[in-house]
């Protein structure tokens, strides 16, 4: 059984952060053959995270969440963007996590924001954080501004990121397209010269599939 832990740091109910987390979770679950999902909603743990910052030990529910992270084969982490970075609560959760818990763990980083101008937050904030924590950050991060929830492009990135995470985590489902998509790789000029993409497909893709 592959263990996936999903951490989302949204504060409102319902939150777009949780919404994105759920889409990433669904795509990852589909890509894996046999997976158990634990969802950690940081809002519910906010007091205990602060308490641990002050006392040094976790309350019961936070300890359970930390144990789940410790036992996970991979993580999906999603934060809202606050003041051009991950939220304080999101960071604090990882601040109180025991050193070394994320060593070598595959982590899919994702963020939500009110505007697409924050999209590089994944590269300038989340990726360095998890690199520092010695996690293996999957190549595709998923950023969603409000307008992305209306489009179809988000699905493509969710699928790609989930496929990458699944491949790093464990036994992938043989029938899933997310991982085969990743494994197939991008077509190069050389590929096109040898076997061009049929024009019917170009026509289809031009109008968004």
């Amino acid at each position, binding site marked *: 059984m592959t263990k996936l832990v999903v951490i989302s740091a949204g504060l409102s109910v319902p939150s777009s952060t949780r919404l994105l987390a759920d889409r990433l979770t669904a795509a990852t679950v589909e890509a894996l053959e046999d997976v158990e999902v634990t969802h950690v909603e940081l809002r519910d743990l906010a*007091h205990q995270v*602060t*308490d641990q*910052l*002050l*006392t*040094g*030990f976790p*309350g019961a529910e936070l300890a359970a969440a930390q144990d789940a992270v410790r036992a996970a084969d991979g993580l999906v982490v999603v934060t809202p963007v606050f003041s051009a970075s991950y939220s304080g609560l999101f960071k604090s959760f990882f601040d109180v996590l025991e050193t070394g818990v994320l060593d070598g763990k595959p982590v899919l980083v994702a963020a939500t924001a009110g505007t697409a101008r924050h999209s590089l937050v994944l590269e300038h904030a989340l990726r360095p954080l998890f690199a520092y924590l010695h996690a293996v950050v999957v190549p595709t991060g998923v950023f969603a501004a409000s307008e992305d929830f209306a489009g179809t492009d988000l699905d493509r990135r969710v699928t790609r990121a989930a496929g990458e995470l699944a491949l790093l985590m464990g036994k992938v489902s043989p029938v899933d397209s997310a991982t085969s998509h990743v494994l197939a790789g991008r077509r190069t000029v050389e590929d096109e010269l040898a076997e061009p993409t049929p024009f019917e497909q170009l026509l289809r893709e031009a109008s968004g599939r």
Partner: protein
Amino acid sequence: MQFGIFTVGDVTADPTTGRTPTEHERIKATVEIAKKAEEIGLDVFATGEHHNPPFIASNPTATLAYIGAKTENIILSTATTLITTTDPVLIAEDYAKIQHLTDGRVDLMMGRGNTGPVYPWFGKDIRDGINLAVENYALLRRLWDEDVVNWEGRFRTPLQGYTSTPRPLDGVSPFVWHGSIRSTEIAEQAAYYGDGFFHNHIFWPAGHTKQMVDLYRRRFEHYGHGTADQAIVGLGGQFFMRKNSQDAVDEFRPYFDNAPVYGHGPSLEDFTEATPLTVGSPQQVLERTLGFRDYVGHYQRQLFLVDHAGLPLKTVLEQLDLLGEILPDLRAGMAEGRPAHVPDAPTHASRVAAAGGAHDSTVYAEADSATGHRAEDAQHTEEVTA
């Protein structure tokens, strides 16, 4: 089973009045508290060591020697001695001296200190904390156990033909405890030497304390000092009591809410549930304390923190009177079901007996083989040659 109190010597404002005691008041209060501890029949008074505000706990040796002169029976200890930033050569001298002055009423608890900026003031680095504790203590042991020491290490200048004076009283060094909240290396160190292991206990859940004590007991047996249940365990504890438990909660809450360490964090209710802190009636304190055995086994020393977070001296002395009232029941309760093979905490007397009796360990300096001079003749020699 020994009962006592330990203090960190914090100078904290009383949140109910806003008044902060002066250093002088706090230092004098510490002496009053120690005298009261002896008066109510406690076995141990221990003081911490800090070298920064808001503490008055620097120079614990002067404090302990002074209290030693003002008391008759109580054992004087530290909680903790900074084995990381204090030169082990000074520790060897200082505590052997207090041993002599107090006729053996002293032991020590080693600790590392967790205040990063303090280390560089003493030429050290907190990242070397464990290594400092390991190397410095190994040297301290040799300074007490061997009359003449040749030593070279990483953290202090080498010693050649060095004799630490005075030699330990009756040829027996003070008993040593090692205190640690979560560093397994320190539990391992205590087990290796067959020394005592003290878990602070008061800031963390019982399950964590149990893990650390279990580790120490297992390794104590591994190193051949006795069975696991014969290992020498000490625990911290913390209470606030009044005859009526709701009075205790009401009176202590502002101190808890504003306390250093856990103040402005978890609620009093959450913290008393998660940790050994007990706020209530004397009966509740008695029962909770007797329950510590359920997860650490029969142990040797119980120290309580009673004088922190700005509690006024008057209140602290009242707390000690209440502790004195339940002390006979605490002793009786702890004796209940205690197997005969579980030892008491070592004392100077028991260690002398175990060493086959007292012997004078004075090292009388011999004349230097090259010059025929002795160190104490140096001044005389200068006068002659001048």
